[in-house]
């Protein structure tokens, strides 16, 4: 019996963000780019923020604000 494959958009989008982050770090460690600590903070907070935002926008059940 064939299993139906369902895409989880949140996981997919989060994976893309993390893959992009990994690629950036790879380029940095390979010497193609020089990321300072300040820019690293920018990229990391943006990546985590994007994952949260995508999870909230695309995701289903999540804890709701009590307000």
């Amino acid at each position, binding site marked *: 019996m064939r299993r139906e494959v369902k895409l989880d958009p949140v996981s997919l989008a989060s994976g893309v963000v993390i893959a992009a982050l990994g690629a950036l770090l790879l380029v940095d460690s390979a010497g193609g780019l020089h990321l300072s600590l300040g820019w690293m903070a920018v990229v990391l907070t943006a990546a985590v*923020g994007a994952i949260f935002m995508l999870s909230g926008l695309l995701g289903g059940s999540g804890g709701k604000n009590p307000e």
Partner: protein
Amino acid sequence: MTRDTRNGWVAGVLAGLGDRVGVDPLVLRIAFVIAAIATGGLLLLAYLVAWAALPAAEGDSAPVARFSPLARVRGDWRVAVGAGLLTLSALLAFRQLGIWWSDAIAWPLALAAFGVALLWVRSPRRAALPADGQAPHVEPPRPSPEARPRRAGSKLAEEYSGAFGVLLVVGAALLFLSSNHVLGGVRDAALTAVVVIVALGLILAPFLWRFGRNLAAERAKRIRSEERAEVAAHLHDSVLQTLTLMQKRADDPREVASLARRQERELRDWLAGGGRSDNGERSLASELRSAAEAIEDDHRVAIESIVVGDCGLDTRADAVLGAAREALLNAARHSGDSGPIRVYAEIDDAGIALFVRDRGSGFDPGTVPSDRRGVRESIVGRMERAGGRADIRSSPGGGTEVAIEIARSDAATREPT
């Protein structure tokens, strides 16, 4: 909070803020201009954000909500955290690019804004009455899937978020002072104050501890005293009065027994919490008890009732109540002094089962004349019309039992048993 575009000069943000906190918008505008100059224009950015995020008082939604999918997920904490982190990332990027005001201003301001936002969210809405006597503006209700009763946990979370907000604002102020080298002068004074407070705490600790313990003991004693007074008042109002009445009616044993049973019921109700039904609505259990009490008083017979479970009075429960009342009346009329009439009812989601038993003289159901409609129509017929059944089991000299059964719904009726 909303933007007051009618009374606003630009987009109504400060007018709406003034309405919310009860401060003249002119004062806020002057303070805003001074702060905007002091922060090198950073507050203008905050004004733009507020304009985009706040709905207008006239009912228009926030500009950002009209174009953004965020409107659909308002209230989701993940979106809020994500937006906060992305904003932080943008600020950091500006700093890296050199488009920056000053660390001494921007970070304390960002911290304070976050803290104030937290405090703002948990503060009760202020209903300010305008000076011209018009009705205050009331924010239109927004139907939200999150609208549900608050839990105890959310209250605790609110308290924590409030404390966190206060800490953030205080931390922002300290950070600002420290960044501007103002704290150096007050550090010695603050240290002295802390040392004095700690020393005073150590000196006063035994006294405070004893004082707190005495307060707790006093409170417990007062509660016990109040409880004792309440019990004494109830005993005086009910039990003592009934005992006096029983002494006066000592020549009538049935009256005495009736008084004793009524008092017993009242005491049991009082001990069980004082209420017949949880929410004051009519329920089958409370109506059965009321019917039993009324028949007990009217016919001077003892009725012992046990009701397990409860339900509202719908058509089926109403039929059960009517049939039970008729069975109780028959038992009260015909059982004589053969001992108490017993009622047992079991109510659950599947159905209702009720039994009325007496040890009276009994009768042969087959010999009941056709013109006697009490049992046939008021009990058996009523239950059959409602979709249930009633069985009369009786024999001369052997007492009578009326068994009433009905399902709570049609689905339960169709289920095989």
